[in-house]
């Protein structure tokens, strides 16, 4: 089942002042698979995805996208490549309806510059139905009126609407109840099944084992290892997260 990775990081490092947030980490995302990214607080998960999203550059290392070496300077360039990130705070405008949020910043307009509301509404319904996000009463409801799971689904749908190839989800189920978590996990699985490369950041191992194909474990800014979900279990993942063997001693400078 292992195909060619669409996104690959080789030996990336990132330092913030005195803090070495990432050291020589490899990472990959494969189309059709869910890659979970796990690690305790401060492991470097956020640093890694922000680098990929173009929020800031990596200090060292190489990023490959579809086999080509790329440098991502800002979020716009990441989107242009087909990389979308759904952050924990979702970045939805509560006062706008679902359609307006899905198209925010990329509205379709007619020749005279009038918003093509009907076309956008149609496309929005099509996308949501395609993802089986179907509990909405209307796509004209303000996002504020939606449940947590629905909001998460909208944020995800917004990310995948634009021919994206890699979708990175930052703690998508953190604030959700049982039923809504179910809803979002199903959506995550469907995204991968439809051919996208999905990166799932989560603290919840139960969720991860349910939908992921592979797990990348980070610890203190180092890569511990990448594991295949079918060949591992809870205990080993927890062990790797908390006491995984590191190539080098954390906190020590590299002397190469």
């Amino acid at each position, binding site marked *: 089942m292992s195909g060619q990775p669409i996104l690959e990081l080789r030996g990336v490092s990132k330092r913030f002042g005195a803090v070495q947030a990432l050291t020589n980490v490899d990472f990959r995302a494969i189309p059709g698979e869910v890659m979970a990214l796990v690690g305790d607080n401060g492991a470097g998960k956020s640093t890694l995805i922000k680098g990929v999203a173009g929020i800031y550059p990596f200090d060292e290392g190489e990023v490959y996208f579809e086999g080509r070496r790329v440098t991502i300077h800002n979020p716009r360039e990441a989107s242009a490549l087909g990389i979308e990130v759904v952050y924990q705070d979702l970045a939805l405008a509560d006062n706008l309806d679902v359609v307006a949020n899905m198209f925010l910043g990329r509205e379709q307009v007619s020749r005279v510059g009038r918003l093509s509301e009907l076309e956008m509404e149609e496309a929005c*319904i099509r996308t949501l139905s395609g993802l089986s996000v179907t509990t909405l009463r209307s796509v004209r409801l303000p996002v504020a009126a939606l449940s947590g799971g629905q909001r998460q689904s909208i944020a995800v749908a917004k990310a995948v609407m634009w021919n994206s190839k890699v979708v990175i989800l930052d703690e998508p189920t953190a604030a959700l109840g049982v039923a809504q978590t179910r809803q979002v996990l199903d959506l995550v699985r469907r995204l991968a099944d439809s051919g996208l490369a999905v990166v799932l950041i989560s603290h919840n191992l139960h969720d991860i084992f349910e939908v992921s194909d592979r797990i990348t474990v980070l610890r203190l800014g180092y890569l511990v290892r990448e594991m295949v979900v079918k060949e591992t279990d809870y205990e080993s993942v927890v062990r790797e997260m908390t006491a995984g063997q590191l190539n080098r001693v954390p906190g020590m400078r590299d002397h190469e």
Partner: protein
Amino acid sequence: MSEKSKSAPDFIDALQKSRQQQSFGEYIENYINRVKSGDIGSLPIIIGLIVIALIFQSQNANYLTPRNLVNLIVQASIFTTIGYGIVLVLLLGEIDLSAGYTAGVSAVIVGRLLERPLDLSSFGIADPVIVPWFVAMGVALLVTLLIGLLQGSIISGFQLPSFIVTLAGQLAWSGVVLLMMGGAGTVNIRNETVLGVTRSFFPPAWGWLLGFLLVATLALNEFLSYRSRAKMGLSTKPPQAIILQMVILSAVTFAFIAVANQDRGVPFIGLIVLLMMAVLTYVATQTRFGRYIFAVGGNKEAARRAGIRVEAIRIRVFMLCSLMAGFGGIILASRLGSVAPDAGGGQLLLNSIAAPVIGGTSLYGGSGKVSSAFFGALVIASVDNGMFLLGLGAGQRLILTAIVLIVAVVVDAVARRRQQASGRR
């Protein structure tokens, strides 16, 4: 997304159902539910206007006369116009406290350019320069646009609260008004065109024609929207609801025209105020710029991440607000027939901000309508006008206006709480 058709083809769910047409009964039921859950729309304004009319009419039979109704429209036009700009700033979650004196600057520029020609002898031009009315208005509007650019750039460039920056602006522009008047006392305006802005009325036949055009345009708009939505298989309003709305709209419009025609006719400025409302409503709801105003007001960070140039939007909105104040200033000069060193002062600013708030635009950004300024201004003008007819002193009038404002804000706050309770923001 490449494969969207993987889901089961035959499920009927909430989203699919939302695409079907509602029946009239369902529509009314939905409306009642929306009101119950706090989405009250323009209901309080309509009830408020009726209550106000009943109270004042019972106290003074002159209140509901054709003459007074026409006066009321003209009176409200000044802070309706300024209020339109305030709506846009409020949508951002900002405020413009300088709008009153910005209007004052505009009024004084028009007055001075037309009636006290500039003395340019120090530039070697001996004869005083007399400019035509459109140049005077053009200069006034240009200056207000620059005022907006200046204030907006300071607010955005230094990330300062608009409250403080425009408070400073209020002081500065009132100073500019004083300087421009140069101790001249009051300057009377005799220019027919400027005076005509608030003193022209349409002949009865024109009034009817305009009313007909208004109703026909709105009806056509509803019809076209209904047709294209139905064609694309999107949910539509039930036709009965559209017809009911159009009947109510025509009744109100033609009743107003019939009454206005008994007096001097439909005021020209009334048409201008409606046209401005139409244009700004279009901008706010049908263009990218308008959508971004709501987005910035709702969630600035989300807007920024969506690639919206948040600061450019904010500066443009402050410019637009000052420009509307500029228009308001011209109407002010026309209505008063003169400009004075206190132009743009007094209650002008408070009324202009109170109007959209009474009309239902939120002070917290992200929610409101351009038309709220119009309806809110009608309420303020009605109360003001009614109290004047009752011979109440300035003290009582101020206090009563304050009560109306507080009631409006309380209604808004209660509605908001109900919306929160029922999960709608």
